C-alpha cells in the first residue's frame, strides 16, 4: 500500500511540529504549508489524500482555500482545524463542503483517530 500523503496548512510552526510527529508515527507522508496564498499550489503539486486546514491563515482564509479545493477535479479530503469554534464557522465550513471540522485545542488521540478514519474512508 503506498504511503498516504497529508498536507498541513497551518501558520503555527509548533502545532505543525507536534502534528507531523504524531502522523509520521502512523506511517503518513506529512508536508506543511504556512502561507494561505500558496496553499492551493501546494495541494496541486503534492496531491495529498488529506488536507488539514487552519481557518485563520496569513494572506488567505481557510474558507477561501476550502472553496478552491472543492472546485478541484479530484479534491482531497479536508479536516478543518480552527481556534474559531463558533457555530457559524462550523456552519460555513459545512456549507462549503468540509469533511470534518475540529476545534483547537484537540486531543492527540481524537485528531489522529479522525485523520486515520478519514483516510481509510476515502
Amino acid at each position, binding site marked *: 500500500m503506498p504511503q498516504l500523503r497529508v498536507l498541513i496548512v497551518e501558520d*503555527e510552526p*509548533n*502545532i505543525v*511540529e*507536534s*502534528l507531523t*510527529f*504524531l502522523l509520521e*508515527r502512523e506511517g503518513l507522508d506529512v508536508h506543511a504549508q504556512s502561507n494561505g496564498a500558496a496553499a492551493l499550489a501546494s495541494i496541486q503539486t503534492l496531491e495529498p489524500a488529506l488536507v488539514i486546514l487552519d481557518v*485563520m491563515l496569513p494572506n488567505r*482564509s481557510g*474558507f*477561501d482555500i476550502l472553496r478552491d479545493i472543492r472546485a478541484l477535479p479530484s479534491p482531497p479530503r479536508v479536516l478543518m482545524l480552527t*481556534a*474559531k469554534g463558533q457555530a*457559524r*464557522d462550523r*456552519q*460555513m465550513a459545512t456549507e462549503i463542503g468540509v469533511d470534518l471540522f475540529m476545534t*483547537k*485545542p*484537540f*486531543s*492527540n488521540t481524537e485528531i489522529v483517530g479522525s485523520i486515520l478514519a478519514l483516510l481509510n474512508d476515502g
Partner: protein
Amino acid sequence: MTQKALAADAGISASYLNLIEHNRRAVAGKVLLGIARVLGVPPGTLSDGVESALIAELRQAAAHLPRQAAELAAIDELTTRFPGWARLTTALYRQTRDQETAIAALSDRLTHDPFLAESLHSMLSNITVIRSTSNILKNITDIEPEKQARFHVIIHEESRRLSDAAQALSRYFDHATDQNAGTATPDEALDRFLQRHDFRFPEIDAHPQANAEEMATTIAQVLQGDSGLDSTESRRLAQQAMVDYAADAQKMPLAEFRPSAEKLRYDPAALARMYGVDLHAVFRRLTHLNGKEGIQIGLVIANAAGRTLARRPLADFSLPRHGAACPLWPLFQAFSHPGTVQSALVELPGQKRFIALSHALAQDAPAIGTPARYHSAMLLIPVGFQDRLGDWLPPLCAPQPIGISCRICPREGCKARSEPQILGDEG
C-alpha cells in the same frame, strides 16, 4: 350642561374645570373619572391630548412582552385611575429597551473586538501546542532524546507566550473597566464626535487661512466645548481629524470651493488640478458640501488591510464600523489599479443605487526597494444626483450588486460571502 353644573356634579370647582378645559391643568385620576362619569363618555376620550403618548408607550410595552398578555382594553382605565403606575410601567419599559440596546451594542463590540479575537485565537493555539506536546511526552516513550528535548523547548516557549497573552488580556480588561475610558472604543468616540458636528467645522471654514497658532486655538476650543470625548486617545483622534480638516480647508477654502465644484459639475479630477491637491483631498472636501442644496456625498477611505481610516456614511449607505466591509466594494478593487479613478454604478440590497468613484493612492514618495503604502478611497454619490454631474463621468454599466457587510447582507448565493448573515433566513 353648563360648566358650573358639570363642575358641581364632578365634585370640583368651576374655576378648576376652566383651567382643565384650557389645558392649563393636567387631568387624570379621580377628577377625570368624575368628569367622564358626569358626561357619560369613556375616560380615554377626555385624556386623548394629555395621555395619548403615555397610552402609545404602554401599547409598545405590552407588545414588547406579548406573553404577559397585558389587558390592552384596560389601558384607558390604567392611565386614568393609576397614572403613576402607568408612568412607572412606561419608564421601566424605556429603561429596559435602552439597556437592551446598550447590551446589544456591547455584545456586538465584544464579538468584533479585534484585540479580543486575536488574543483568544493566540491563546487557544498556545494551549493546543502545550496540550498536544505534553501528551506526546507523557504517552509516547520511544522518542529520540533530541526530539524529546525539542518538545520540552516547545512547551517552554508556548507556556511563556500563553502567560504573556494572559497578562495582556488582563491589562486590557483593567483598562476597559477604567471609568474614564467610557464604553466606546476611541474609533467609535471619534465617529460620534464627527456626527455631533455633522462632519463639518464651520469654526475652521470661517478662517481657513488662519496661522498655525490661531488654528490650534480654534481646534482646542472646539474640543473643549465637546463633552463626549472621554479618553485621551479619542481626544487625540478628534484633534487629528480637525487638523486634517483644517489642512483641506486651507488648500480649498469652502467659499471658493463650493462655486468651483458647482461650476465644474463636481468633477474631482478637475478640482484636484485646480487646487493642486490629490484626489483623496478633493473627495474629503466634497463631503463637506453635504447638506446644502440637497448634496449628499459619502466617503470611505481604507488602508490595504481594509481598515477604515475615514468614513462619511450616508443615510442610505451605512458603513460598518468594525472592518469586514463587503469585499465587492470598488474601494477594494481600486487597490489592483492604483492611480486610476474607477467609476461604477453599485446597488445595495433594496435597490438603492450609488455612483462609486474609487481611487487608490500611494502614501509615500517612490523609493527603490520599498513597497509603497496605498490608501484607497471610495466616493459615493446617490444616483439621483447624476444629472448635476458633468460629462466627465463615463457612461455607467449595469449596476454591480454589493452589500454593506456579510453579517447584515441578505444576498443569497454570493460568492464573496465570508461569514453567514445574522438577519435570520436569507431572502
